[in-house]
Protein backbone atom coordinates (compact mmCIF):
# COMPACT_ATOMS: atom_id res chain seq x y z
CA UNK A 1 0.00 0.00 0.00
CA UNK A 2 2.71 2.42 0.91
CA UNK A 3 4.69 1.36 -2.14
CA UNK A 4 1.70 2.08 -4.34
CA UNK A 5 1.11 5.45 -2.71
CA UNK A 6 4.72 6.22 -3.29
CA UNK A 7 4.49 5.42 -6.99
CA UNK A 8 1.32 7.47 -7.28
CA UNK A 9 3.05 10.45 -5.72
CA UNK A 10 5.98 9.99 -8.03
CA UNK A 11 3.67 9.67 -10.99
CA UNK A 12 1.97 12.95 -10.15
CA UNK A 13 5.21 14.73 -9.45
CA UNK A 14 6.69 13.41 -12.64
CA UNK A 15 3.80 14.82 -14.64
CA UNK A 16 4.11 18.21 -13.00
CA UNK A 17 7.81 18.69 -13.71
CA UNK A 18 8.98 20.60 -16.74
CA UNK A 19 11.85 19.48 -18.92
CA UNK A 20 14.38 22.01 -17.67
CA UNK A 21 17.73 22.82 -19.19
CA UNK A 22 20.24 24.81 -17.20
CA UNK A 23 23.43 24.86 -15.19
CA UNK A 24 23.81 22.14 -12.60
CA UNK A 25 25.17 22.82 -9.13
CA UNK A 26 28.50 21.35 -10.17
CA UNK A 27 28.84 23.87 -12.99
CA UNK A 28 28.00 21.61 -15.97
CA UNK A 29 25.09 22.37 -18.29
CA UNK A 30 22.38 19.85 -18.99
CA UNK A 31 18.86 18.63 -18.34
CA UNK A 32 17.53 18.49 -14.81
CA UNK A 33 16.81 14.92 -13.79
CA UNK A 34 14.80 15.73 -10.71
CA UNK A 35 12.65 18.50 -9.34
CA UNK A 36 15.38 19.22 -6.86
CA UNK A 37 17.91 19.72 -9.64
CA UNK A 38 15.54 21.93 -11.60
CA UNK A 39 14.96 24.11 -8.55
CA UNK A 40 18.66 24.47 -7.92
CA UNK A 41 19.24 25.75 -11.44
CA UNK A 42 17.52 29.00 -10.40
CA UNK A 43 16.54 31.62 -12.90
CA UNK A 44 19.16 30.81 -15.52
CA UNK A 45 17.34 27.77 -16.84
CA UNK A 46 14.79 27.19 -19.52
CA UNK A 47 11.81 24.87 -19.77
CA UNK A 48 12.40 23.21 -23.11
CA UNK A 49 8.96 21.57 -23.27
CA UNK A 50 7.06 24.79 -22.57
CA UNK A 51 9.07 26.71 -25.12
CA UNK A 52 8.97 23.93 -27.67
CA UNK A 53 5.23 23.26 -27.58
CA UNK A 54 4.23 26.90 -27.38
CA UNK A 55 6.46 27.88 -30.31
CA UNK A 56 5.32 24.86 -32.32
CA UNK A 57 1.66 25.70 -31.76
CA UNK A 58 2.18 29.41 -32.37
CA UNK A 59 3.99 28.71 -35.62
CA UNK A 60 1.26 26.28 -36.64
CA UNK A 61 -1.38 28.91 -35.94
CA UNK A 62 0.46 31.64 -37.82
CA UNK A 63 1.30 29.31 -40.69
CA UNK A 64 -2.33 28.40 -41.33
CA UNK A 65 -3.61 31.92 -40.85
CA UNK A 66 -0.84 33.32 -43.04
CA UNK A 67 -1.72 30.81 -45.74
CA UNK A 68 -5.31 31.97 -45.68
CA UNK A 69 -4.26 35.62 -45.54
CA UNK A 70 -2.15 35.19 -48.65
CA UNK A 71 -4.89 33.55 -50.65
CA UNK A 72 -7.75 35.54 -49.14
CA UNK A 73 -10.15 36.22 -51.95
CA UNK A 74 -13.35 38.18 -51.95
CA UNK A 75 -15.26 35.39 -53.66
CA UNK A 76 -17.08 32.57 -51.93
CA UNK A 77 -14.79 31.37 -49.13
CA UNK A 78 -14.14 27.66 -48.82
CA UNK A 79 -12.83 25.30 -46.18
CA UNK A 80 -9.98 26.72 -44.18
CA UNK A 81 -10.64 30.28 -45.30
CA UNK A 82 -14.20 30.02 -44.06
CA UNK A 83 -13.03 28.80 -40.68
CA UNK A 84 -10.32 31.43 -40.34
CA UNK A 85 -12.69 34.20 -41.38
CA UNK A 86 -15.20 33.01 -38.82
CA UNK A 87 -12.60 33.29 -36.03
CA UNK A 88 -11.29 36.62 -37.31
CA UNK A 89 -14.80 38.07 -37.39
CA UNK A 90 -15.50 36.73 -33.92
CA UNK A 91 -12.36 38.38 -32.53
CA UNK A 92 -13.02 41.53 -34.51
CA UNK A 93 -16.52 41.89 -33.11
CA UNK A 94 -15.18 41.26 -29.60
CA UNK A 95 -12.63 44.02 -30.06
CA UNK A 96 -15.16 46.39 -31.58
CA UNK A 97 -17.51 45.66 -28.70
CA UNK A 98 -15.10 46.49 -25.88
CA UNK A 99 -12.37 48.65 -27.35
CA UNK A 100 -13.46 52.20 -28.04
CA UNK A 101 -10.19 53.87 -29.06
CA UNK A 102 -8.38 53.32 -32.34
CA UNK A 103 -5.35 51.07 -32.28
CA UNK A 104 -4.51 48.68 -35.13
CA UNK A 105 -2.52 46.50 -32.75
CA UNK A 106 -5.29 45.43 -30.42
CA UNK A 107 -7.24 43.15 -32.75
CA UNK A 108 -4.23 41.09 -33.96
CA UNK A 109 -3.06 40.92 -30.35
CA UNK A 110 -6.44 39.58 -29.30
CA UNK A 111 -6.45 37.06 -32.13
CA UNK A 112 -2.97 35.82 -31.24
CA UNK A 113 -3.89 35.49 -27.57
CA UNK A 114 -7.12 33.67 -28.30
CA UNK A 115 -5.77 31.12 -30.75
CA UNK A 116 -2.45 30.58 -29.08
CA UNK A 117 -3.90 30.00 -25.63
CA UNK A 118 -6.63 27.85 -27.10
CA UNK A 119 -4.09 25.64 -28.88
CA UNK A 120 -1.86 25.38 -25.83
CA UNK A 121 -4.87 24.46 -23.71
CA UNK A 122 -6.04 22.02 -26.35
CA UNK A 123 -2.97 19.88 -25.73
CA UNK A 124 -4.63 19.07 -22.41
CA UNK A 125 -7.12 16.88 -24.23
CA UNK A 126 -4.41 14.53 -25.44
CA UNK A 127 -4.23 11.50 -23.14
CA UNK A 128 -1.67 12.63 -20.62
CA UNK A 129 0.78 9.77 -21.03
CA UNK A 130 1.14 9.75 -24.79
CA UNK A 131 3.70 12.44 -25.45
CA UNK A 132 5.55 12.03 -22.10
CA UNK A 133 5.71 8.30 -22.90
CA UNK A 134 7.27 9.01 -26.27
CA UNK A 135 9.67 11.46 -24.63
CA UNK A 136 10.59 8.82 -22.05
CA UNK A 137 11.42 6.40 -24.85
CA UNK A 138 13.64 9.08 -26.37
CA UNK A 139 15.44 9.42 -23.06
CA UNK A 140 13.98 12.73 -21.90
CA UNK A 141 13.32 12.65 -18.15
CA UNK A 142 10.29 14.97 -18.15
CA UNK A 143 7.73 16.25 -20.61
CA UNK A 144 4.91 18.63 -19.78
CA UNK A 145 2.71 18.93 -22.84
CA UNK A 146 0.40 21.74 -21.82
CA UNK A 147 2.41 24.97 -21.97
CA UNK A 148 -0.31 26.97 -20.21
CA UNK A 149 0.18 24.88 -17.04
CA UNK A 150 3.59 26.48 -16.78
CA UNK A 151 3.34 29.83 -14.97
CA UNK A 152 6.30 31.00 -17.03
CA UNK A 153 4.11 30.90 -20.12
CA UNK A 154 1.07 32.57 -18.60
CA UNK A 155 3.11 35.24 -16.83
CA UNK A 156 5.12 35.78 -19.98
CA UNK A 157 1.96 36.69 -21.80
CA UNK A 158 0.33 38.66 -19.02
CA UNK A 159 3.50 40.68 -18.37
CA UNK A 160 3.75 41.52 -22.05
CA UNK A 161 0.16 42.68 -21.94
CA UNK A 162 0.97 44.61 -18.77
CA UNK A 163 3.88 46.31 -20.49
CA UNK A 164 1.52 47.32 -23.32
CA UNK A 165 -1.01 48.65 -20.79
CA UNK A 166 1.64 50.83 -19.17
CA UNK A 167 3.07 51.92 -22.52
CA UNK A 168 -0.30 53.02 -23.87
CA UNK A 169 -1.34 54.59 -20.55
CA UNK A 170 1.71 56.83 -20.69
CA UNK A 171 1.41 57.41 -24.43
CA UNK A 172 -2.27 58.38 -24.28
CA UNK A 173 -2.33 60.33 -21.01
CA UNK A 174 1.25 61.43 -20.68
CA UNK A 175 3.49 60.48 -17.80
CA UNK A 176 1.81 63.08 -15.60
CA UNK A 177 -1.64 61.83 -16.49
CA UNK A 178 -0.67 58.25 -15.71
CA UNK A 179 0.88 59.17 -12.36
CA UNK A 180 -2.10 61.40 -11.63
CA UNK A 181 -4.40 58.50 -12.34
CA UNK A 182 -2.47 56.42 -9.82
CA UNK A 183 -2.28 59.05 -7.09
CA UNK A 184 -5.16 61.53 -7.38
CA UNK A 185 -8.13 59.22 -7.20
CA UNK A 186 -10.39 58.10 -5.69
CA UNK A 187 -9.76 60.35 -2.62
CA UNK A 188 -8.34 63.52 -4.17
CA UNK A 189 -4.86 64.88 -3.63
CA UNK A 190 -4.93 64.77 0.19
CA UNK A 191 -5.37 61.02 0.19
CA UNK A 192 -2.38 60.42 -2.02
CA UNK A 193 -0.79 57.48 -0.16
CA UNK A 194 -4.10 55.68 0.08
CA UNK A 195 -4.78 56.40 -3.57
CA UNK A 196 -1.40 55.06 -4.61
CA UNK A 197 -1.92 51.95 -2.54
CA UNK A 198 -5.39 51.27 -3.97
CA UNK A 199 -4.56 52.09 -7.56
CA UNK A 200 -1.22 50.31 -7.34
CA UNK A 201 -2.89 47.12 -6.18
CA UNK A 202 -5.47 47.62 -8.89
CA UNK A 203 -2.74 47.96 -11.49
CA UNK A 204 -0.61 45.05 -10.32
CA UNK A 205 -3.67 42.83 -9.98
CA UNK A 206 -4.23 42.97 -13.74
CA UNK A 207 -1.27 40.88 -14.95
CA UNK A 208 -1.25 38.70 -11.86
CA UNK A 209 -4.92 37.80 -12.16
CA UNK A 210 -4.62 37.25 -15.92
CA UNK A 211 -1.72 34.85 -15.52
CA UNK A 212 -2.92 33.06 -12.42
CA UNK A 213 -6.45 32.55 -13.69
CA UNK A 214 -5.26 30.77 -16.79
CA UNK A 215 -2.51 28.91 -14.99
CA UNK A 216 -4.79 27.85 -12.14
CA UNK A 217 -7.53 26.57 -14.39
CA UNK A 218 -5.22 24.62 -16.63
CA UNK A 219 -3.13 23.31 -13.77
CA UNK A 220 -6.19 22.08 -11.93
CA UNK A 221 -7.60 20.50 -15.09
CA UNK A 222 -4.30 18.77 -15.76
CA UNK A 223 -4.20 17.59 -12.17
CA UNK A 224 -7.62 16.00 -12.47
CA UNK A 225 -6.53 14.21 -15.65
CA UNK A 226 -3.48 12.92 -13.77
CA UNK A 227 -5.62 11.70 -10.86
CA UNK A 228 -8.00 9.99 -13.26
CA UNK A 229 -5.03 8.40 -15.02
CA UNK A 230 -3.90 6.87 -11.73
CA UNK A 231 -7.17 4.93 -11.63
CA UNK A 232 -6.12 3.00 -14.74
CA UNK A 233 -3.64 1.00 -12.69
CA UNK A 234 -6.20 0.13 -10.01
CA UNK A 235 -7.92 -2.91 -11.53
CA UNK A 236 -10.61 -3.42 -14.17
CA UNK A 237 -13.49 -1.66 -12.40
CA UNK A 238 -11.45 1.41 -11.57
CA UNK A 239 -9.96 1.47 -15.06
CA UNK A 240 -13.39 1.49 -16.71
CA UNK A 241 -14.61 4.14 -14.30
CA UNK A 242 -11.48 6.10 -15.02
CA UNK A 243 -12.09 5.84 -18.76
CA UNK A 244 -15.62 7.18 -18.37
CA UNK A 245 -14.45 9.94 -16.06
CA UNK A 246 -11.65 10.91 -18.39
CA UNK A 247 -14.05 11.17 -21.29
CA UNK A 248 -16.53 13.24 -19.24
CA UNK A 249 -13.83 15.53 -17.90
CA UNK A 250 -12.37 15.97 -21.40
CA UNK A 251 -15.77 17.00 -22.77
CA UNK A 252 -16.20 19.47 -19.93
CA UNK A 253 -12.64 20.63 -20.44
CA UNK A 254 -13.36 21.64 -24.03
CA UNK A 255 -15.57 24.32 -22.54
CA UNK A 256 -12.91 25.38 -20.04
CA UNK A 257 -10.05 25.69 -22.50
CA UNK A 258 -12.13 27.78 -24.88
CA UNK A 259 -13.51 29.88 -22.06
CA UNK A 260 -10.06 30.54 -20.59
CA UNK A 261 -8.70 31.60 -23.96
CA UNK A 262 -11.71 33.87 -24.44
CA UNK A 263 -11.43 35.38 -20.96
CA UNK A 264 -7.72 36.11 -21.41
CA UNK A 265 -8.47 37.78 -24.74
CA UNK A 266 -11.43 39.81 -23.48
CA UNK A 267 -9.66 41.03 -20.35
CA UNK A 268 -6.65 42.04 -22.44
CA UNK A 269 -8.92 44.09 -24.67
CA UNK A 270 -10.62 45.66 -21.66
CA UNK A 271 -7.33 46.50 -19.93
CA UNK A 272 -5.99 48.09 -23.09
CA UNK A 273 -9.23 49.99 -23.51
CA UNK A 274 -8.86 51.34 -19.97
CA UNK A 275 -5.27 52.31 -20.79
CA UNK A 276 -6.51 54.33 -23.75
CA UNK A 277 -9.19 56.20 -21.85
CA UNK A 278 -8.80 59.44 -19.96
CA UNK A 279 -10.16 59.47 -16.45
CA UNK A 280 -11.20 62.82 -15.13
Amino acid at each position, binding site marked *: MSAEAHTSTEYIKHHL*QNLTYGQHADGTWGLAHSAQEAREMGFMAI*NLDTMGFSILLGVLFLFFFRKVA*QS*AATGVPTGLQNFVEWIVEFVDSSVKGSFTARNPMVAPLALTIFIWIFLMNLMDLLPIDWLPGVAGMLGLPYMKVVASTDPNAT*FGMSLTVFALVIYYSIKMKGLGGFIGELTLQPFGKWGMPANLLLEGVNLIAKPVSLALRLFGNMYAGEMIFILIAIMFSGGAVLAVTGGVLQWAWAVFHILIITLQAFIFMTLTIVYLDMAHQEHH
Partner: protein
Amino acid sequence: MNINMTLIGQSITFAIFVWFCMKFVWPPIVSALEARKKQIADGLAAADRGKHELELAAKRASETLHEAKLKASDIIAQAEKRAMQIVEEAKDVAKAEGDRLIVSAKAEIEQESHRAREALRGDVAALVVAGASKVLRREVNAQAHADLLEAIKNEL
Protein backbone atom coordinates in the same frame (compact mmCIF):
# COMPACT_ATOMS: atom_id res chain seq x y z
CA MET B 1 6.90 25.15 -11.57
CA ASN B 2 10.01 27.31 -11.18
CA ILE B 3 10.07 30.77 -12.61
CA ASN B 4 13.11 30.96 -14.85
CA MET B 5 14.33 32.21 -18.23
CA THR B 6 11.29 30.61 -19.83
CA LEU B 7 9.34 33.65 -18.63
CA ILE B 8 11.45 35.95 -20.78
CA GLY B 9 11.54 33.46 -23.64
CA GLN B 10 7.77 33.23 -23.63
CA SER B 11 7.40 37.01 -23.55
CA ILE B 12 9.69 37.39 -26.55
CA THR B 13 7.94 34.57 -28.41
CA PHE B 14 4.59 36.12 -27.67
CA ALA B 15 5.72 39.55 -28.84
CA ILE B 16 7.08 38.08 -32.09
CA PHE B 17 3.84 36.18 -32.72
CA VAL B 18 1.76 39.29 -32.12
CA TRP B 19 4.00 41.32 -34.40
CA PHE B 20 3.78 38.71 -37.14
CA CYS B 21 0.00 38.47 -36.78
CA MET B 22 -0.36 42.24 -36.89
CA LYS B 23 1.95 42.55 -39.91
CA PHE B 24 1.09 39.58 -42.10
CA VAL B 25 -2.09 37.88 -40.95
CA TRP B 26 -4.66 40.36 -39.73
CA PRO B 27 -4.63 43.08 -42.43
CA PRO B 28 -5.07 40.84 -45.51
CA ILE B 29 -7.88 38.83 -43.95
CA VAL B 30 -9.73 41.87 -42.66
CA SER B 31 -9.32 43.72 -45.94
CA ALA B 32 -10.63 40.67 -47.82
CA LEU B 33 -13.61 40.59 -45.47
CA GLU B 34 -14.24 44.29 -45.99
CA ALA B 35 -13.91 43.93 -49.74
CA ARG B 36 -16.36 41.05 -49.77
CA LYS B 37 -18.80 43.02 -47.61
CA LYS B 38 -18.60 45.88 -50.08
CA GLN B 39 -18.99 43.51 -53.02
CA ILE B 40 -22.10 41.98 -51.52
CA ALA B 41 -23.58 45.38 -50.75
CA ASP B 42 -22.84 46.52 -54.29
CA GLY B 43 -24.40 43.36 -55.69
CA LEU B 44 -27.55 43.85 -53.66
CA ALA B 45 -27.77 47.46 -54.75
CA ALA B 46 -27.32 46.42 -58.38
CA ALA B 47 -30.03 43.80 -57.99
CA ASP B 48 -32.36 46.42 -56.57
CA ARG B 49 -31.56 48.74 -59.42
CA GLY B 50 -32.14 45.95 -61.93
CA LYS B 51 -35.49 45.14 -60.41
CA HIS B 52 -36.49 48.78 -60.55
CA GLU B 53 -35.42 49.02 -64.17
CA LEU B 54 -37.35 45.88 -65.00
CA GLU B 55 -40.47 47.40 -63.48
CA LEU B 56 -39.96 50.55 -65.50
CA ALA B 57 -39.41 48.56 -68.67
CA ALA B 58 -42.55 46.51 -68.10
CA LYS B 59 -44.50 49.68 -67.54
CA ARG B 60 -43.06 51.22 -70.70
CA ALA B 61 -43.80 48.08 -72.68
CA SER B 62 -47.43 48.00 -71.61
CA GLU B 63 -47.73 51.69 -72.45
CA THR B 64 -46.28 51.10 -75.89
CA LEU B 65 -48.59 48.17 -76.42
CA HIS B 66 -51.57 50.25 -75.43
CA GLU B 67 -50.53 53.03 -77.84
CA ALA B 68 -50.03 50.53 -80.63
CA LYS B 69 -53.47 49.11 -80.05
CA LEU B 70 -55.01 52.56 -80.16
CA LYS B 71 -53.14 53.38 -83.34
CA ALA B 72 -54.12 50.12 -84.96
CA SER B 73 -57.79 50.61 -84.22
CA ASP B 74 -57.46 54.18 -85.52
CA ILE B 75 -55.95 52.91 -88.73
CA ILE B 76 -58.66 50.29 -89.12
CA ALA B 77 -61.39 52.85 -88.59
CA GLN B 78 -59.78 55.16 -91.10
CA ALA B 79 -59.46 52.35 -93.64
CA GLU B 80 -63.08 51.41 -93.22
CA LYS B 81 -64.09 54.99 -93.69
CA ARG B 82 -61.93 55.28 -96.75
CA ALA B 83 -63.35 52.07 -98.23
CA MET B 84 -66.86 53.33 -97.72
CA GLN B 85 -65.88 56.57 -99.36
CA ILE B 86 -64.40 54.73 -102.33
CA VAL B 87 -67.56 52.68 -102.71
CA GLU B 88 -69.67 55.80 -102.54
CA GLU B 89 -67.50 57.52 -105.10
CA ALA B 90 -67.65 54.53 -107.40
CA LYS B 91 -71.41 54.52 -107.08
CA ASP B 92 -71.59 58.20 -107.96
CA VAL B 93 -69.29 57.78 -110.93
CA ALA B 94 -71.30 54.82 -112.19
CA LYS B 95 -74.52 56.68 -111.81
CA ALA B 96 -73.16 59.73 -113.65
CA GLU B 97 -71.89 57.49 -116.44
CA GLY B 98 -75.24 55.77 -116.69
CA ASP B 99 -77.03 59.09 -116.85
CA ARG B 100 -74.64 60.29 -119.48
CA LEU B 101 -75.22 57.13 -121.54
CA ILE B 102 -78.97 57.51 -121.22
CA VAL B 103 -78.81 61.11 -122.31
CA SER B 104 -76.66 60.36 -125.33
CA ALA B 105 -78.84 57.39 -126.26
CA LYS B 106 -81.90 59.59 -126.05
CA ALA B 107 -80.24 62.22 -128.23
CA GLU B 108 -79.31 59.60 -130.77
CA ILE B 109 -82.81 58.24 -130.78
CA GLU B 110 -84.12 61.74 -131.25
CA GLN B 111 -81.71 62.37 -134.10
CA GLU B 112 -82.59 59.06 -135.71
CA SER B 113 -86.31 59.73 -135.52
CA HIS B 114 -85.79 63.25 -136.82
CA ARG B 115 -83.81 61.93 -139.74
CA ALA B 116 -86.42 59.30 -140.43
CA ARG B 117 -89.10 61.96 -140.32
CA GLU B 118 -87.16 64.12 -142.75
CA ALA B 119 -86.70 61.23 -145.09
CA LEU B 120 -90.34 60.36 -144.73
CA ARG B 121 -91.33 63.95 -145.41
CA GLY B 122 -89.21 64.02 -148.57
CA ASP B 123 -90.73 60.78 -149.69
CA VAL B 124 -94.26 62.02 -148.96
CA ALA B 125 -93.61 65.24 -150.86
CA ALA B 126 -92.31 63.34 -153.84
CA LEU B 127 -95.31 61.07 -153.58
CA VAL B 128 -97.64 64.04 -153.38
CA VAL B 129 -95.96 65.68 -156.30
CA ALA B 130 -96.15 62.50 -158.30
CA GLY B 131 -99.75 62.07 -157.24
CA ALA B 132 -100.62 65.63 -158.01
CA SER B 133 -98.95 65.49 -161.39
CA LYS B 134 -100.81 62.40 -162.14
CA VAL B 135 -103.99 64.15 -161.02
CA LEU B 136 -103.38 67.23 -162.99
CA ARG B 137 -102.16 65.29 -165.88
CA ARG B 138 -100.18 68.13 -166.60
CA GLU B 139 -96.61 68.44 -166.32
CA VAL B 140 -95.89 70.30 -163.25
CA ASN B 141 -92.64 72.00 -163.49
CA ALA B 142 -90.72 70.87 -160.52
CA GLN B 143 -88.40 73.78 -160.59
CA ALA B 144 -91.26 76.24 -161.07
CA HIS B 145 -93.13 74.87 -158.15
CA ALA B 146 -90.35 74.13 -155.90
CA ASP B 147 -91.36 76.86 -153.49
CA LEU B 148 -94.80 75.45 -153.34
CA LEU B 149 -93.58 71.97 -152.81
CA GLU B 150 -91.22 73.06 -150.12
CA ALA B 151 -94.05 74.83 -148.30
CA ILE B 152 -96.13 71.71 -148.44
CA LYS B 153 -93.24 69.62 -147.23
CA ASN B 154 -92.79 71.88 -144.27
CA GLU B 155 -96.43 71.63 -143.38
CA LEU B 156 -96.31 67.91 -143.19
